């Protein structure tokens, strides 16, 4: 009996109204086909989705939480990056 663990996969699901796939969780599976089937069985039992992506977790490169200061904080003080300094003409709708 071998005790080798199957790789971990991250699951992304697009709901009926949703425009993009959202991360919903992870699971283990031997390969991509079974990962998709497992995702279907585990995460879409209650009609949660119409499309599934699975990505082997190994292939996800994440930012390091300890870098958060240098990564994200500088943008907090740069209000000019938001396009809020324009006068919106009266005739413009749907803004």
């Amino acid at each position, binding site marked *: 009996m*071998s005790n080798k663990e199957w790789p971990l996969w991250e699951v992304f699901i697009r709901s009926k109204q949703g425009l993009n796939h959202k991360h919903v969780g992870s699971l*283990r599976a031997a*390969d991509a086909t079974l990962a998709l*089937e*497992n995702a*279907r*069985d*585990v995460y879409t039992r209650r009609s949660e989705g119409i499309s599934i992506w699975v990505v082997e977790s190994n292939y996800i490169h994440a930012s390091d939480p300890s870098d958060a200061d240098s990564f994200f904080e500088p943008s907090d003080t740069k209000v000019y990056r938001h396009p809020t300094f324009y006068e919106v003409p009266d005739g413009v709708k749907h803004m």
Partner: protein
Amino acid sequence: MKNEALYNYVLHMGDDSLVLGQRLGEWCGHGPILEEDIAMTNISLDLIGQAMSLLDYAAEIERQGKDHDALAYLRFENQYRNVLLVEQPNGDFADTMMRQFLFDAFRKPLYEKLTASSDAQIAAIAEKSLKETRYHLKHTSEWIIRLGDGTDESHDRAQKALDNLWRYTNELFYETEEAKSLVMAGIVPPMSEIKILWKQTVEAVFTEATLVIPTNNWQFEGGRRGVHSEHLGYLLAELQYMQRAYPNMKW
């Protein structure tokens, strides 16, 4: 009864689904991994849902004022018409997948043909069940291929399961004399047609899975006539316990 042939046909399909659904449900909480535990119980619930539709329709044809519960819970062992294959014990994961695969490969073409049934109710049940069954077959085919063409141990176990269960496959195509009248009426397809389609599926999957179909042609049958293996009684004891102990109880 006016249409006994139709009653028996719908009943035997309902019994196949019910008994296999109950068997598969025994894996609940015992699956090899959480994901597969859920997959198997999903399939189990699909089968029990199909059994409800089929047994309800059987009760409607029978006109004795029964419903699916009365047919599922209050018959004796020899009144069940399921094939012997579906009552076989779960064994290991390979045994369960093999049993399920052999059955799904049979049910899919059967439902496909039944969607064109001249009986509107049967056509509607087939239409709904076909979508579920297509997925079941896909899932079990993937597993048979991976178990057969996997490690030495998984291959041996899958081959052992096939050697054991092959003897129960011919009964799937058992056709009674009265069922032939349904074939004539365009209500159900001839089993000879289903067998050809079934064989194509299983041969293709076993080839890919590097599994060998046994050459021993000895086949069991009896379930369709109500003659069952000793395993069914235990299964029914568990299935029927609540209704027998507390008649008419509802959840």
